[in-house]
């Protein structure tokens, strides 16, 4: 039997689709889970350890806890931005996966990468507009949920 066009025979089609999906699943390679987990753990952990070292470094300069935390974040963000600009961050990410996405450096990368990518489309419609293609949703959902948390705190006060 030939494969049917999309809307040819609906009931037959459902079965054909599920049969095919099974066939695909049998053959599809799985991601190298153990290697990926190890990469994410080691590199993600290393970034956090660097963050801890930076916090301690700024604390030793007499900054308070909040200040040292903010300074450490800004430093990590700068380093991630620089590595993205140099084209190194995505090479590390190949091995680290979520290890380079989940830390604050991943947020920085998600802002710098499109800014860099679209500069050829100009400063306003390129860099300016595209900078938040990935970070925009993060800020939107972050702000809205935080606002709700604040609202609840206000009501419960």
């Amino acid at each position, binding site marked *: 039997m030939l494969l049917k066009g999309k809307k040819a025979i609906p009931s037959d089609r459902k079965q054909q689709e599920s049969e095919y999906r099974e066939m695909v699943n049998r053959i*599809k390679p799985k991601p190298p889970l153990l290697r*990926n*987990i190890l*990469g*994410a*753990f*080691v590199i*993600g*952990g290393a*970034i*956090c*350890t660097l*963050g*801890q070292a*930076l916090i*301690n470094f700024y604390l030793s300069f007499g900054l308070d806890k909040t200040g040292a*935390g*903010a300074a*450490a*974040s*800004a430093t990590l*963000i*700068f380093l991630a*931005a*620089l590595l*993205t*600009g140099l*084209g190194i961050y995505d090479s590390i990410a190949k091995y680290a996966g*979520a*290890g380079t*996405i*989940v*830390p*604050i450096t*991943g*947020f*920085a990368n*998600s*802002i*710098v990468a499109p800014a*860099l990518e679209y500069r050829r489309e100009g400063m306003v419609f390129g*860099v300016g507009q595209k*900078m938040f293609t990935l*970070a925009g*949703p*993060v*800020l939107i*959902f*972050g*702000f809205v*949920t*935080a*606002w709700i*948390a*604040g*609202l*609840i*705190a*206000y009501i419960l*006060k």
Partner: protein
Amino acid sequence: MLTTREDKIMEYFKAFVIGGGICVIGQLLMDLTSYKITPAHILVGFVTGGVFLSAAGIYQPLVDFAGAGATVPLTGFGHLLAQGAIKGAQEKGLLGAFGGGLEASAAGISAAVIFGYLMAVVFTPKGD
């Protein structure tokens, strides 16, 4: 507060293990859904997840325990937002709930935007 050498090593060890562990959760979310969950989803999910955990009072103990291991991952960014908004609401009322989150995270966001802009001016994408 004076800390001994062992305390320092323990502090780094905890940051490494907890930070790495949080990243592994992100990795599992992507790998086990055969990449239906994209990096964009991870970024959004971890920040909002951090807000929820923080509002529920679960995240602060983790920060106290693991230090940078809990603040560097994006869940820590969500924690910052939530605590800012909650503190704002408690201290300044309703208006504080609007401003608190952004106030607390302003430095980080501005840093990312400014460095992002500067890098875009200085570098060109390398491609592959």
